[in-house]
């Protein structure tokens, strides 16, 4: 059975980076957002608190500004670009879903949704991706 990829801090860092890269569309913006996410989280961490609340890192990351309104040059291509082009909250939800860092119940809690709402969101996002694949295959 495949297990969740949430063993180490570096796995979380990579996952946070992927989430932020899909949200922002640009590597440099993603790195900056990751830096701010870690900084904000560390500043808000109580000194007596032991260990890192990884879920809180993702909550903070989701508060970071994503792609701006005007179309910018993106560093993405292929499926990552298709993910980036999805509207929110589908974009972040399905990205986190594919990252396989948290189980769906934890994920729905991070996103502030019920698990049924999360399932609907993932279903809708997947359909959008499939339709993009169909379009690109047709052209």
């Amino acid at each position, binding site marked *: *059975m*495949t*297990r*969740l*990829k949430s063993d*180490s*801090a*570096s796995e*979380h*860092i*990579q996952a946070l*980076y*992927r989430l932020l*890269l*899909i949200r922002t569309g*640009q*590597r*440099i913006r993603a*790195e*900056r957002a*990751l*830096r701010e996410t*870690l*900084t904000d989280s*560390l*500043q808000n*961490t109580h*000194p007596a608190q032991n260990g*890192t609340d990884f879920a809180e890192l993702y909550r903070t990351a989701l508060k970071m500004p994503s792609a701006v309104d005007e179309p910018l*040059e*993106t*560093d993405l*291509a*292929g*499926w*990552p670009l*298709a*993910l980036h082009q999805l509207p929110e909250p589908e974009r972040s939800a399905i*990205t986190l*879903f*594919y*990252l*396989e860092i948290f*189980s*769906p*119940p934890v994920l729905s809690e991070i996103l502030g949704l019920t*698990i*049924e709402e*999360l*399932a*609907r969101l*993932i*279903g809708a996002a*997947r359909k959008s*991706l*499939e339709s993009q694949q169909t379009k690109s295959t047709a052209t």
Partner: protein
Amino acid sequence: MGQSLFSLLRPAYESTPELAAVASQARAEIESFNDLKQQIEFDDKVAQELASLKLADSQAAAFASLLSAPSVNAHSKGNLIGTAKPDETRGEPSRTSSEAQSKEEEEEEEGEAPTRARPRTILFAVGVGLVATVCMVIFLISDRLNSFEGADRISELLDSANDLTGDEFEAVETKAGDLQDWFFLKHGLEHYAVPKQFANIKTVGCRVFKFNGATVAQIMAVADKEILLYMFPSNELGIKIRKGKWEIVEDERWVGGVTGINNTCFLVAFQGNKDEMKEFLSNVAR
């Protein structure tokens, strides 16, 4: 509820209690099993490409180290991460984007440049400051030692000589030491005093004029060059100079040697510079 969670099925999630029943049900029926298989195949393609987006290991390690060192302040964190080389990142397709990235990083580094100077820079700045202060103190002391109170008045007096034509003087051809009576009888001047070494200098003309409220006796004389001699009460021009000590004041065109005789200030001037005056005074003293 079971079917509504079907879209959340992924091999990694099937052991989750909320999804376990849905997963086993989906795998039990052929139709739903095929749907699940198709869904998983599609999701795998997307997830694989998503996983190919990676930070360089060094960068990821730098970010991860922040999580294990929460006491480090936020600013130093930014710097630590900012040091990773851009070409260490992997999985990006476009060259143009990496160029844009490095450009943005440069801008970012400029914007977030550390505001704290390095100790060596601080020491260097303090050293330069100390040297400058010492130089300034030496200059002020030296200036003070080489000057005397009222030196600026002497400079003004030297300046006034620029306007002389020679017609202002009354012709008196004698020796400088013999003019005390002439000045007293002609102008009622009491403060006439000439240093001994100037007593035998031949005079050409004399006059008395007012300068800043002081009565000044002026003699045009000839030594090895044309010179002017001035005598006036020291206190009237606020000049304080030690008796017998020569001070030299240099102006743009004129140079003056000043000394005190009792309460009278004696000034000898000619067109030249400080070195010439030194030489002149040493020659006269012989």
